[in-house]
């Protein structure tokens, strides 16, 4: 540990000043716009206006709903997948984990674009439905909440699976066999043994997925179109179509509060775990 303060500041300040100037100060000013009263002083009337519009309410609720739904479904699929991966033999485990991580390196635009081919009017799903006689006319799957849900799930499922894999690997190896020997059925094993022991991994994965859904732009923009909006696409529309910067600031504040809340939760769980570890050691 070096003690020279001037040297330390000279090394650290350029990065801090750059981040403050390019990022922190503009963002804080942007956020303050939503609280500024045109006649002077501060007000929350922009927030009351925002939430009194039925359209905005619908977008806000849809964002929360899709975020929650994607998080829950990815947790369910994630546990099954992570459990299956952890139980593979070592060589296979690495390869399958690689396949799960692979999509994270592919541009989200490309990954979202694929769903147009699959869900579009002449897409694979509609071709199959018509061939099987389920429907005569092409179904409208694209530009709906369903399409956004599928796109977001595919985008963020890998993050959940990775978080759960490391949680399951850190679990004591004999916990599950022990519970089985003592007569627990698989439901009880999951609920009373696996879930409590992997809670932190679930929270980490859940936070990543939930904040990812909140702040995803490409998926709702491409798969939701201009009618089925989420908060990010609504914000873009408010700026580029309506020039309404106050509404954009309100949405920005809501998004930041929601992602910060999720991140604080994440930190709290992480510190709780460290305390437990220290207590155990």
């Amino acid at each position, binding site marked *: *540990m*070096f*003690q*020279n*303060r001037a*040297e*330390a*500041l000279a*090394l*650290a*300040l*350029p*990065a*801090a000043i750059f*981040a*403050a100037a*390019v*990022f*922190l100060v*503009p*963002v804080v*000013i*942007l956020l303050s716009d939503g609280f500024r009263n045109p006649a002077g002083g501060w007000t929350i009337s922009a927030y009351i206006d925002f939430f009194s519009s039925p359209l905005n309410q619908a977008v806000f609720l849809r964002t929360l709903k899709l975020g929650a739904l994607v998080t829950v479904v990815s947790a369910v699929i994630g546990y*099954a*997948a992570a459990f*299956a*991966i952890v*139980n593979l033999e070592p060589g296979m485990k690495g390869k*399958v984990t690689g396949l*799960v991580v*692979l*999509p994270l*390196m*592919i*541009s*989200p*635009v*490309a*990954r979202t*674009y*694929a*769903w147009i*081919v*699959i869900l579009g009017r002449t*897409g*694979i799903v509609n071709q199959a439905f018509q061939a099987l006689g389920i429907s005569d006319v092409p179904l409208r799957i694209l530009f709906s909440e369903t399409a956004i849900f599928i796109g977001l799930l595919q985008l963020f499922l*890998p993050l959940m*699976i990775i978080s759960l894999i490391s949680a399951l690997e850190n679990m004591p190896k004999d916990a599950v066999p022990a519970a089985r020997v003592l007569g627990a059925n698989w439901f009880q094993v999951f609920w009373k043994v696996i879930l409590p022991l992997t809670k932190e991994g679930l929270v980490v994965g859940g936070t990543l997925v939930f904040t990812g859904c909140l*702040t995803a*732009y*490409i998926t709702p*923009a491409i798969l939701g179109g201009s009618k089925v909006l989420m908060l*990010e696409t609504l*914000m873009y529309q408010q*700026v580029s179509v309506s020039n309404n910067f106050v509404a954009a600031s309100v949405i*920005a504040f809501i*998004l930041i509060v929601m*992602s*910060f809340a999720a*991140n604080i939760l994440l930190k709290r769980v992480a510190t709780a775990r460290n305390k437990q570890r220290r207590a155990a050691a």
Partner: protein
Amino acid sequence: MTVARSLFIPLVLFLVIAFLIGPFLIIVAASFSAGETLAFPPQGFSLRWIAKVFTVESFRASFGMSMFLAIGGTLAALVLGIPASYALSRYKLPGAEIVRTIVSAPIIVPGIIVGLALLRYIVVPFQIGITLALFMAHTALILPYAVRVVSASLENLRSDIEEAAVLLGSSRLGAFFRVVMPNIRGGILSAFILGFVTSFNQVPVSLFLSGPGVRTMPIDMIAYMEIVFDPSVAALSSLLALMSIGIVFAAERFLGFSRYV
């Protein structure tokens, strides 16, 4: 083990991987189509759409722009981030937590907000060009990754070897370049790759900062697919994916990239 359980694992894995990778394989297949529109199964086989990618003028321009932002932004983030990481891990820095929070904040705030704030309060008032604004935004975005990855590799390096170098008469700067840098080379390269891929695939930050003629690759792809529904975006997506997977695989193979991330 019952039959039901022995079937469970392969079935779950098959379905999950099909869901995660399948759509992308469809895109790859569609890019070899001979037909006029994007469709699966592809109509015939040809390389015409792969070839077309290289002839679309806007793709060439936006690819160049994204390459510039990804490489330039990552280098700038490293130039700022390496000294900051070093100060955070080796010095008693007053306000260390504040510095750490400020440099890693751009990762928490949604990109679309960063882009809009920069446009409204830096670009417009100070009359900054779009390219410079994009460069600043991407640098700020990559900075948290650079600091995180470089800090992690500094933490893994014992600090007494550089203290020894200083005691033996090296200057602090000399010790850094001759003792520390060679040892964190892998971390720096990992930070570079992570920054490159993050910047190249980034959309929301660049959304408001793209003007006529100045577009990043992914934004240009979105704009193109809104107008033309031919397989060229599929072909381009396949080529770009090949590029980023290639980079990450090479990094993993030669550096053990995943140790640092």
